[in-house]
């Protein structure tokens, strides 16, 4: 278990890592989101990136996917430094990645079937019969073969995310990035998505990176977890190790404590001064 003040370090040898973040800093305008971050995502495992809202989890995912550029450091995916890639090389790499967005990001003018078929139609020229079978197999994997003709607005939140998951795996990627896959789902849909993430990892050997602040579901499916805060790693280890951590940061997050290192109260001047000596605002 990493001490909360100890420098972040890669716990896995480079050869075992599909993704390596080396000394990455990222700023949004003038605000530092990630500060000299170093971590590794092991191949074939489910790795969770957890942390409070605005801690840089999604930014990290976007750095891995090449949608953002770091102000410093290297983002290595399968040995390639993502910020150095040309657009063409980046698109080649993305064909080997899948991403599940927070709300699915299904194309609203296409049916569930056509959404799953979309990446194949864009990147391959398959006979229609082969394409149909491939799409139906992926939809069957997520249990929605029967919903193939439904339009995105006819799908529940959980179903939309399952269709999006089928679309993410249709090109058989080496890695899937999950951005808050459990947000806004009912417990049944949450369980379904969690099971699918785990099964896809086990059956297809896909490396999975799950960004989430849903502690319980994420802990159930992940092999390893990082806890981010203040642009750095506050804790890391297996979910069981994190549960046993004595770090205040980790405890506050894992137990959902309202006050702690992340304060309940937003910084303000003295309460009484504010009430009785206010400037009218």
């Amino acid at each position, binding site marked *: 278990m990493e001490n909360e003040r100890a420098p972040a370090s890669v716990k896995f040898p480079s050869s075992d890592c599909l993704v390596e973040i080396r000394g990455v800093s990222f700023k949004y305008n003038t605000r530092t989101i990630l500060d000299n971050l170093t971590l590794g995502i092991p191949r074939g495992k489910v790795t969770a990136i957890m942390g409070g809202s605005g801690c840089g989890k999604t930014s990290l995912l976007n750095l891995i996917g090449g949608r953002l550029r770091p102000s410093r450091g290297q983002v290595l995916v399968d040995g390639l430094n993502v910020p150095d890639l040309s657009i063409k090389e980046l*698109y080649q790499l*993305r*064909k080997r990645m*899948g991403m599940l*967005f927070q709300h699915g*990001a*299904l*194309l609203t003018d296409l049916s569930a079937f056509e959404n799953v078929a979309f990446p194949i139609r864009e990147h391959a020229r398959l006979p229609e019969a082969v394409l149909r079978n491939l799409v139906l197999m992926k939809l069957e994997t997520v249990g929605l073969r029967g919903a193939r003709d439904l339009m995105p607005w006819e799908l529940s939140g959980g179903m939309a995310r399952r269709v999006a998951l089928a679309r993410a795996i249709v090109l058989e990627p080496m890695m899937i990035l999950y951005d808050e896959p459990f947000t806004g789902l009912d417990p049944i849909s949450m369980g379904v998505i969690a099971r699918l993430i785990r099964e896809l990892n086990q059956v297809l050997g896909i490396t999975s990176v799950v960004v989430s602040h849903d502690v319980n579901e994420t802990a159930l499916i992940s092999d390893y977890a990082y806890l981010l805060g203040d642009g750095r790693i506050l804790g890391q280890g297996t979910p069981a190790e994190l549960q046993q951590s004595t770090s205040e940061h980790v405890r506050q997050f894992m137990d959902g404590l309202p006050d702690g290192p992340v304060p309940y109260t937003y910084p303000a001047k003295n309460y009484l001064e504010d009430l009785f000596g206010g400037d009218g605002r």
Partner: protein
Amino acid sequence: MKMFQTLGAAVLQAMERLGRAALFLYEILGNSWALVTRFYLVIQQVYAVGVFTLPIVLVSGLFVGMVLGLQGYNTLVKFGAAQSLGLLVALSLLRELGPVVTALLFAGRAGSALTAEIGLMKATEQLAGMEMMAVNPVMRVIAPRFLAGVISMPLLAAMFSAVGILGGHLVGVGLLGVDSGAFWSQMQNGVDFRDDVMNGVIKSVVFGVVVTWIAVYEGYDAAPNAEGVSRATNHTVVYSSLAVLGLDFIMTALMLGDV
């Protein structure tokens, strides 16, 4: 001093936006070549952008032509030139009203719809999703819509003018008693293909480029939330309308330069 600072900041911001919009247009044109082999994407958008705008263009064209017939007759009859009504209606529509009113209608109907659609695709991460599927959204979403707008505008303007002339005929010949033969023959003799028809076509192509460019850029640049999409849609209609009217004056001045 403060006023100059504010003014300067606003001008700099506007120039920055214009620069980004110009780079965006360059990117669209660069990606348009890829659509040669996938022209069906453009055809789909011509249907969505052009065909759905057709009813409003036809109805507006009819009424504008009818009003031109009424107003033109009442003016011409004072000079004993009522038989030239066909020429007046045709020239007004082909040179000015066809391209300009069609562009204004297009901005309100199709331009705002394009902005809202692209803005919502951005807000719901559909464009980001495409990028992560290694699909360039500028090629797949923006360029087909841009080309569809550029193709549709002159066709819509031509139909506006054609229906407008019929409207003028309906009022002038049908209601006010202008001779039908004089209506058409004056038009045939007085309308020049290059100076009148082609100049109108050039105007509508330019308006097509500008209005669709503004619409797709505003959508692509919209803040990814409800307020951002609403603001972008509003910008599209306002900027497009001003650009059409301003460019119309410039182009008219250039086209009439040798008169």
